[in-house]
């Protein structure tokens, strides 16, 4: 049965996980994502699932590794400094090809930083905070509905590719209440053949990441999988790009603000379009292919010092066409401020 409700983003993420068949969740309290654990400590037992508050994020991610290795849909959630502590475990999970879902509600940094809205953890999650060059799909969300949809789907993607999948959430979206509709719950499936369930009637299963001199074929297999994910998972939302002179680029909550800006700019007679990446890895390079060959400028807006900006430059293939507007001190960029930058770029193009 579909369920409609008015919920905080963090709670919607938790409910979506349960409905996706997640039956193991391990966490450590950390603002601004603690509501996920607070929701699931009562919700998970209702469906016979496992929920446990760990002694640290280091322990939480390894509890996740253990539970997911038994073939159950497993999730954790954290924020910047907690994700730093989880990064070692994430590297092992990626190497072991165990499906898990990580919800990251960003907070301001570096260091302890603050709880102000920010997108400073793009590098950390999209480029891999851990060692060894692993990749993992990363979904961004512009609103609470998309956040819930992303968490729900993340479990399927994780299982299909046997990989960790991250859902990157702006702190605003985590705290914001919106109407959200959930799909009917998915009952948990039988554990897959690779899972550690006891070796009754079969040879033993081993999940490991150390290969000594036999590493190269394993790395090659991982890289081939990353290639497949890059081909198959790119996703973005696009508005009014066909005749645009300037295309705005932003992820998460900024992408939502840029939709308003695009409409406002069009009302002023400016030919402005929008590309909002939904997957940050793989970066939706295909979304930039059509416009890259034309005389189009791109304006990337982020609540950081220009992290996705670099991916946009690579996607466009000409850094002279890619511009950047940052917001300092973890402040949400204002539409007026963005429009002023658009006017400036449009003026430069005309002259």
């Amino acid at each position, binding site marked *: 049965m579909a369920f409609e409700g008015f919920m905080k983003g963090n709670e919607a993420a938790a409910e979506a996980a349960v409905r996706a068949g997640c039956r193991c969740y391990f966490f450590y309290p950390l603002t601004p994502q603690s509501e996920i654990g607070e929701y699931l400590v009562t919700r998970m037992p209702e469906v016979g699932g496992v929920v446990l508050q760990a*002694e640290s994020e280091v322990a939480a991610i390894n509890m996740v590794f253990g539970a997911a290795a038994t073939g159950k849909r497993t999730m954790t959630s954290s924020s910047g400094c907690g994700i730093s502590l989880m990064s070692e475990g994430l590297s092992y999970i990626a190497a072991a090809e165990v499906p898990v879902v990580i919800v990251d509600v960003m907070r301001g940094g570096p260091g302890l930083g603050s709880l102000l809205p920010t997108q400073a953890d793009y590098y950390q999650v999209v480029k891999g905070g851990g060692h060894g060059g692993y990749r993992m799909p990363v979904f961004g969300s512009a609103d609470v509905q998309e956040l819930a949809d992303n968490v729900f789907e993340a479990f399927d993607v994780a299982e299909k590719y046997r990989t960790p999948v991250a859902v990157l959430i702006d702190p605003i979206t985590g705290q914001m209440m919106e109407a959200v509709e959930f799909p009917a719950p998915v009952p948990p499936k039988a554990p897959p053949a690779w899972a550690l369930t006891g070796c009754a009637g079969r040879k033993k299963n081993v999940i490991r990441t150390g290969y000594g001199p036999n590493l190269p074929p394993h790395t090659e297999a991982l890289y081939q999988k990353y290639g497949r994910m890059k081909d198959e998972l790119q996703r973005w939302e696009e508005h009014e790009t066909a005749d645009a002179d300037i295309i705005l680029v932003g992820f998460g909550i900024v992408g939502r603000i840029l939709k308003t800006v695009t409409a406002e700019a069009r009302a002023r007679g400016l030919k402005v379009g929008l590309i909002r990446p939904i997957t940050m890895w793989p970066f939706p390079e295909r979304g930039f292919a059509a416009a890259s060959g034309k005389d189009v400028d791109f304006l990337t807006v982020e609540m950081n010092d220009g992290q996705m900006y670099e991916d946009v430059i690579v996607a466009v293939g000409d850094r002279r066409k890619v511009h950047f507007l940052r917001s300092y001190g973890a402040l949400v960029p204002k539409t007026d401020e963005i429009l002023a930058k658009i006017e400036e770029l449009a003026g430069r193009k005309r002259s």
Partner: protein
Amino acid sequence: MRALFKYPDSLVRISSPFCPGCGHGIIHRLVAQAIDDLKIREKTVGVVGVGCSSQSWNLFNFDFLAVPHGRPGAAATGVKRSLPDHLVFTYQGDGDAYAIGIAELMHAAIRGENFTVIVVNNTMFAMTGGQMAPTTLAGQVTSTSPSGRDPRATGTPVHFPELIANIPGVAYSARVAVDSVPNIRKAGQAIAKAFRKQNDKAGFSLVEVLAPCPTGLNLKPAEAMAWVAEHLEAEFPLGEFADR
């Protein structure tokens, strides 16, 4: 005719990766025998971290998970919470268990997690070349304590089975050794007892096994065994510290 001795089903028939005279082989045999005796091999999941102990995924004949250095206590928590009726144990060296992994083991004990921990204490980080561990004896020479461990600078050997003995969630905590036939028999009994506690859902169980590392000690195998009896057992008393 009754079979008095057979190769355990819970061990794979491959040659040992361990150095001549290493204690791991004996301990693997004892763990495998205990699992065979409980007839629970097909419902067992082992967990290793990193160190010489991490090679045991290859030697044991049941499902196995290899996790980051020091994290078996957390990973086994995840496995056991997901599969509460399976036998779950970690197999760790003293560096993995008591240096980088002491927080995960301590909290597993505090929560009374219903799995078993086997810690092989050879007083050093053996795989990386014999560096000082939290269990290294005062005055013991290692590659990172070339003048002998100085307790004023680097502390005294950790006695983990005694440390956790008063925690209510700990069902069993013991220290055994594999330096003589009587001690090996007692070690096997302690491991079997720990597994039975887990089967009875009594709580956290831990068996520390004092074992020789001839390579790290730069001794011949027989000398390393004698060193365990003379020096290790003098520092680390054998016995049961919790049994509830």
